[in-house]
């Protein structure tokens, strides 16, 4: 305890905190992370249930009537309701599940532990960033019950569908879509709160990583998870303000009659005119995608980082090409800022811009390729231990390749002319978001659960869950490529109107059935999660024989994390050193005598 270092000062002796301060309004990054985790999982259920409604409608647009199925159901939801359901499905999944889980839960939990800090740089700010989610939770949930229902303009909320409303004073009944009145305002407000929350989080993460690393933890000794979180935070801090502006402008358009996104002369809906205009409809798309394309990398980079750590740990092998991996993340982030136009190839944007955006977009596959091959390099010649966490991480790699490769089709402008807004894109979305990010999240949960709660999750049921999820998610989403190739447009309430889609309708039914089985499989996860929370086998400090710093702290770590500030002596991936008996060498372990330190 004689470290002369200022940050290790254990001067603040912690007196007992009340339950409220300890678990609810906690400033402890671990508790906040866990709060984010629970919120995210709850919203995953809500978003997933909405997805099932989507599938129900798309698979059986005329009601269910199957010879082999006991229940027949003639009910139909209304097209407007359908639009609301998929819009809220995507909004919830992206802004209330993936982002809180990846950056909120794992970012909070892992960053200070992995760099050997006692806590975040600004614990109060950290707490606020969680509590700023709550107005968002409340608003987005209550928006289902407001007049007209929740927003229904897709998660992209393009004007004018989203922003056309009656002039102020005449109520918010939009002639464009019944849900783009108050529901849309709720959507905007909720996203504003999420944005502010993420912004606070990202500033906190960056500061923590820049300034609070434990002694010896140089930038290039940080685990990939921390690198990924760091670069994600940079992305967020640079991209989010733009979304904030866009949201505010749309909010102003809808409430005080500004005309940022309304075209000149206003627009005519039947007999009814919007007010004056003069703005640019495309401007919203530019501002939105300027955020939302980097956002899709915000939604995958942390998962990539986590997966790198998990794979290296369970392959019992040094991560292949650590520096290239870091550079690849940085490259993805950098390129990610100049490709937003690929969502707008067919939007009426100047086609010459399309050419530029296309080249940038296709080149972004390069850093992704580096990552993919390095993961393969990591398991090559490894000694793989198939824990559930590892399986999920490997599934991430396998599925990310599929999702990424389908991105190339859409990045190619002429091919995107055909594929834009078809189910091919829905397939892409779910391969990169559900089957990459969510598998990464599952992997992370299985991996850090013992550190979070001091108990292990049940491996057997974990594997059952994994097998079923892997199987049924492929059954659910892979055929989307096929119906996309056949031209099935997305956001379609009923595709049976179209002759050219006749022969893919059976696939739609197949996907719906798989989606329900997929949902059932998630119940296993839930049960396992809560059962293990209370009944799981007790985990020691380092159940996986992992190298990174968090495993030197007790499980679960106390407030302040480390009994003694760790001193970092090497990189995080010293597995399988042939000179040693053990196949791992934690970052903070003193150099064993007789083992030569790596070169330099």
């Amino acid at each position: 305890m004689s470290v002369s270092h200022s940050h290790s000062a254990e001067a603040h002796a912690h007196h007992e905190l009340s339950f409220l301060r300890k678990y609810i309004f906690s400033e402890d990054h671990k508790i906040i992370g866990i709060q984010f985790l629970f919120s995210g999982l709850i919203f995953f259920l809500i978003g997933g249930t909405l997805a099932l409604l989507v599938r129900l409608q798309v698979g059986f647009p005329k009601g269910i009537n199957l010879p082999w199925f006991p229940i027949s159901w003639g009910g139909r939801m209304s097209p407007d309701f359908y639009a609301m359901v998929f819009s809220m499905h995507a909004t919830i999944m992206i802004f209330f599940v993936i982002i809180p889980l990846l950056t909120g839960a794992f970012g909070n939990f892992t960053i200070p532990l992995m760099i050997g800090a006692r806590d975040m740089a600004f614990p109060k700010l950290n707490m606020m960033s969680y509590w700023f989610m709550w107005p968002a939770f409340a608003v987005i949930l209550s928006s289902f019950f407001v007049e007209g229902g929740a927003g229904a303009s897709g998660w992209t909320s393009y004007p004018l569908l989203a922003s056309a409303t009656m002039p102020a004073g005449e109520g918010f009944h939009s002639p464009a879509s019944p849900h783009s009145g108050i529901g849309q305002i709720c959507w905007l407000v909720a996203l504003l709160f999420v944005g502010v929350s993420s912004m606070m989080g990202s500033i906190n993460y960056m500061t923590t990583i820049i300034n609070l690393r434990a002694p010896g933890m140089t930038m290039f000794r940080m685990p990939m998870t921390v690198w990924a979180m760091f670069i994600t935070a940079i992305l967020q801090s640079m991209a989010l303000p733009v979304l904030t502006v866009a949201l505010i402008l749309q909010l102003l358009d809808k409430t005080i009659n500004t005309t940022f996104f309304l075209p000149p002369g206003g627009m005519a809906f039947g007999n009814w005119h919007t007010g004056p205009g003069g703005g640019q409809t495309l401007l919203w798309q530019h501002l939105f995608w300027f955020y939302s394309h980097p956002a899709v990398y915000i939604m995958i980079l942390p998962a990539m980082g986590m997966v790198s750590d998990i794979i290296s740990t369970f392959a019992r092998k040094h991560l292949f090409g650590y520096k290239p991996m870091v550079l690849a993340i940085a490259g993805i982030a950098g390129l990610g800022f100049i490709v937003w136009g690929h969502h707008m190839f067919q939007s009426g944007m100047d086609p010459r811009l399309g050419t530029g955006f296309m080249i940038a977009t296709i080149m972004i596959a390069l850093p992704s390729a580096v990552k993919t091959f390095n993961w393969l390099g990591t398991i090559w010649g490894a000694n793989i231990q198939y824990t559930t966490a590892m399986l999920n991480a490997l599934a991430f790699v396998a599925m990310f390749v599929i999702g990424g490769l389908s991105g190339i089709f859409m990045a190619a402008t002429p091919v995107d002319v055909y594929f834009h807004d078809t189910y091919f894109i829905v397939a892409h979305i779910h391969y990169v978001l559900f089957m990459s990010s969510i598998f990464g999240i599952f992997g992370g949960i299985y991996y850090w659960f013992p550190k979070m709660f001091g108990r292990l999750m049940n491996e057997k049921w974990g594997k059952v869950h994994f097998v079923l999820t892997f199987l049924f998610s492929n059954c659910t989403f892979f055929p989307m490529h096929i119906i996309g190739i056949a031209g099935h447009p997305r956001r379609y309430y009923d595709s049976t109107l179209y002759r050219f889609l006749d022969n893919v309708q059976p696939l739609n039914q197949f996907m719906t059935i798989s989606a329900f089985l997929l949902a059932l499989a998630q119940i296993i996860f839930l049960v396992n999660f809560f059962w293990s929370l209370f009944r799981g086998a007790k985990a020691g400090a380092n159940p996986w024989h992992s190298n990174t710093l968090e495993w030197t702290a007790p499980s679960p770590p106390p407030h302040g994390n480390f009994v003694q500030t760790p001193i970092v002596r090497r990189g995080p991936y010293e597995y399988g050193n042939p000179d040693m008996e053990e196949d791992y060498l934690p970052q903070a372990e003193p150099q064993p005598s007789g083992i030569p330190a790596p070169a330099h």
Partner: protein
Amino acid sequence: MQQKGWGIFFGVVLLAAFLSIAVGPLVGWWLPANVSSFGPDVDYLYYVILGFTTFFFLLTEVLLVWAMYRFAGRPGNKSQYVEGHHRLEMLWTVVPGGILLYIAIAQISAWERIKYQAKMPDPDLVMQVTARQWDWTMRYADTPLPENHRRWAEIPNFDDIYLPDELHCWKGANVRIYLKTNDVLHSLFLPQLRLKQDALPGKTIPVWFNATDANTRFNASTGNCEWTDKNKEWEIACAELCGGGHYRMRGLLYVHETKDDYLNWLKHAQKAARSRQPEKKATPVAAKD
């Protein structure tokens, strides 16, 4: 050995996925027939990308599955101790980099051909398509190619013909559409023509196509256009969310065999339109070629 089973499991699922797309063309789960002059470009590029992606799909997934099988852990075993490999790193940066660059550059000319306004061919037939919630309104001039068509797109003539959801043209004609919308965003999607373009409020966007196959014949006795082939009922869809009726903005594409057939239909349509508006004194129409 149970550990090895995981590699096999991954392999089976991935193989099934691969096969499902491979059998797609055999059972009709594939691109719809292509009848556009630039369609072959699009399809060709699609196949180029499909080729490269299939290759990389197989490469990465086979390596993954094989590694999962081969390097499944055994107690007491140890992994190889390598931190990286500079040459390999270069290899898998440069090779995909080159391929990607090729893919990117290969796209440019087709994209220019399809969308660049300066490269659009001079039209033989001009019409204006206006989207609204939730149908398409096609406006035809009394002649396929009105003088100063750019201006005609802005200023309608009295004797223009308005038709909901029916797009007529003839085989081989360079069709120029001036796309507009009255309300929200819509997107004109013609799957068989490999054409898609959003309609922007406040803007007029030119799009063009040239159909290489016909599907309809005008029957003067009934006054209807009849499909020449039951399987060639080509449809127009809307591909940009535009509210509750987005899914039912269905239109039909009528490609006439010859220009004369088209003109016959046009004359008929004109007459029908005029008889629908008796209050308007028929302006003399000369269907000049």
